[in-house]
């Protein structure tokens, strides 16, 4: 069975370690473009690195710098970023029940509760593997996200994000992040409604506020779902 002290040495967990490292490498590349973008938006190297170390949730950080970079206020940058950060609270509902340990351990675990660590953990079958996957993924991504941010922030003004198409890298990364959320009909409705609310309010509201308003699209979740008594043939995976 899995050795609880060194779960990552368990051969059964090798796929988790491999997947975590692959994911962490991609996140590192993404972090470089975050670092470049943040410095171009007017943040100092110290502010950029502090953000990745302390905030540690990519979509919130990106949304904050893109609002600031476009001339939005601190308040509107915070609003959109905090709405995005709220989803980690939802993940924490799940992870808080699974991660054991003393208070300091759990305080660190809370910081590591993000999309990737949660997704990797819930994909495992037994509780030991779930905890190992959480810590391995969370730790790898914390390391690579901060290293990448530092590299990007130091490159900073040496790189013109527009020349290298980095301004399109962010929406592309968002598309990749939202893709799995669009598998359910509800997810697609919320996505389309959120996008429609945002695009129609961009010309009339201060920068960053339309993102906040788009969160209202989650209200499509209020009504109970129809019973799935009649499974469709060839339903998507």
């Amino acid at each position, binding site marked *: 069975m899995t050795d609880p002290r060194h779960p990552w040495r368990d051969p059964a967990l090798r796929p988790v370690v491999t997947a975590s490292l692959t994911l962490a490498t*991609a996140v590192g590349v993404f972090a470089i473009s975050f670092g470049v973008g943040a410095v171009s938006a007017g943040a100092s190297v110290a502010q950029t690195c502090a953000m990745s170390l302390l905030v540690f949730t990519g979509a919130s950080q990106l949304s904050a710098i*893109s609002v600031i970079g476009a001339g939005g206020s601190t308040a509107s940058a915070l609003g959109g970023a905090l709405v995005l950060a*709220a989803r980690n609270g939802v993940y*924490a509902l799940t*992870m808080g029940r699974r991660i054991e340990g003393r208070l300091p351990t759990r305080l660190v675990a809370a910081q590591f509760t993000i999309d990737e660590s949660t997704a990797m953990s819930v994909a495992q079958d037994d509780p030991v593997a779930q905890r190992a996957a959480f810590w391995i993924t969370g730790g790898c991504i914390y390391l690579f996200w901060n290293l990448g941010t530092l590299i990007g922030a130091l490159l900073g003004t040496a790189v013109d994000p527009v020349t290298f198409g980095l301004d399109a*890298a962010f929406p592309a990364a968002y598309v990749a992040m939202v893709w799995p959320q669009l598998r359910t009909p509800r997810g697609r409705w919320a996505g389309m409604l959120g996008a429609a609310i945002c695009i129609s309010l961009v010309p009339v509201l201060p920068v960053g506020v339309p*993102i906040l308003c788009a969160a209202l*699209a989650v209200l499509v979740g209020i009504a109970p779902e129809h019973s799935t008594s009649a499974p469709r043939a060839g339903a998507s995976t």
Partner: protein
Amino acid sequence: MSWTLVLVLAAGAYACKAVGFFVLAGRTLPPAVDRCLSLIPAAVVSALVVKDTFASGQDLSIDARVLGVGAAVIALWRRAPFVVVVVIAAAVTAVARRLGWN
């Protein structure tokens, strides 16, 4: 950018995680609230996609970013990994600009 933004965002983001981890983890939320919360990424991240693809400040425009994001969608549909999707989007946009399409 102000340090206020960095520190308030850090405190707020950690508070979101901690509330779920330490306060609410033992409880069950009303199902309707649960369903709505689970839709936050779909709604908000989709909004970020269209904002960063079409908006520059308060102006809407169609420029080289659209080609890059379009290429990213095709790459995702072809099941390309995350890093490939992002690199393709940046490369297509950069090339389109080099060819003179703003």
